[in-house]
């Protein structure tokens, strides 16, 4: 499983990359492989605020719908609208073209509670 070193991870299988106080969030390679065949993505509305660990998006495979949680609190500032026409990007490029949304962090301290790549890898191996 691909677990890039430079990202932070939630135990619910989301990743976040933070630049200038804005986090880009997606699902991990492990999550996309578990879901497989993603055919629909429901994204949050820009401008809405969420608390960490709230369900903000839904990713649906042929067989099941799965909630996606935001790893941090903040306001949604952008969503990846390319996924509406091409949800399969979540399977083929989970860390690149398959990102889900960008969120302006209201409490950057929350990042400390997330997993490092190493810790997430350990969780996967259990």
């Amino acid at each position, binding site marked *: 499983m691909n677990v890039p070193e430079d990202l932070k991870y939630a135990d619910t299988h989301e990743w976040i990359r933070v630049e200038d106080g804005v986090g880009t969030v997606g699902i991990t390679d492990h999550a996309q492989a578990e879901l*497989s*065949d993603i*055919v*629909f993505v*429901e994204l949050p509305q820009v401008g809405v605020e969420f608390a960490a660990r709230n369900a903000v998006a*839904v990713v*649906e*495979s*042929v*067989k099941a*719908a799965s909630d996606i949680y935001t790893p941090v609190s903040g306001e949604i500032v952008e969503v990846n609208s390319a996924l509406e026409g091409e949800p399969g990007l979540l399977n083929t490029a989970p860390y690149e073209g398959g990102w889900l949304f960008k969120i302006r962090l209201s409490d950057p301290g929350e990042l400390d509670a997330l997993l490092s790549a190493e810790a997430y890898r350990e969780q996967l191996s259990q």
Partner: protein
Amino acid sequence: MPKRTPLYDRHLTAGGRVIDFAGWEMPVQYSSILEEHRAVREAVGIFDISHMGEFLVRGEGAAAWLDSLLTNRVASLGIGEAQYTLMLNEKGGVIDDLIVYRIEETSYLLVVNAAKIEEDAAWLGGHLAEGVVFEDRSDTFGAVAVQGPKARALFAEVFNEPLPEARNRILTKEFAGEEVFVVTTGYTGEDGFEVVAPNAVIGAVWDAFVNAGARPCGLGARDTLRLEMCYPLNGSDLSPDRTPLEAGLGFFVDLSKEDFVGKGVLVAQKENGLPSRLAALAITEKSPPIRPHYPIWVNGEQVSETTSGAPSPSLGHSIAMGYLPPGHAKVGQTVEIEVRGKRYPATVVKKPFLKRA
């Protein structure tokens, strides 16, 4: 403890993702439901259906006894022929849907749903008649379904003879020194067959067809394939509270038979009108995938919920089934299906969803 079929280790080796299905650990998919679905529509796939139940019924009175408990007419079967049929409760509701195969003059094979083996066996056992021997052989038989346009070629390769042209047939063959049943039935809408074999050789049957090129397919693809054909799934589209007439299965109900359990209710429904009809619903406008138990709305009122639903890999949009008031179940009727608090338009269409050439 969940049960495992004789093919369990093969599923793990092939990368199968195992889930609980009716108390059985079964593969829901190997690599991809979409690819497995496509393999069956375009080439050939193989499914483990060993979880399904097998009953043997023998004796001079077998046909008459089965005819008193099942909706279709067993007496019309020639030797080597099969028919889809339903077993009803006293209210005319569905206990199970099954296939009856006439193996010999007075010997029948019944293949029933995995989730209903015990209930069916108890019901049949509780209605036993003179001159009939009933045996639940579910634990001694495994089974595979080989389905797809190339299934016929694979059969010829493995069995060194052509598959019978006709649907709904049963043959007795020898495989690896054991007697096995080859039946030309299936649950996908494709050409193909199923092999019912003793547990000891079902692994060799699986290997022979996988080596010949059949792609292992899981329950996920089995569900999307059957739903595209509007084949009902018991426990979802069929229930003890709905009759086969409401489910649109009147073709498999012979009301001219003298009697069978549930007949009176069906006759009354036929005279007085059906309380509901199982409709095929196409969701062609962009929507989230439609799944079972989503509310169905007609004219601003919730009338029922979907009994089945999935994104159709062949059609590229969601398809579903659900019971509607008969006045709103006509082809062309528009309804709405609710997903996470939002409603999406759906249209009642003619069954099946997938029209074959």
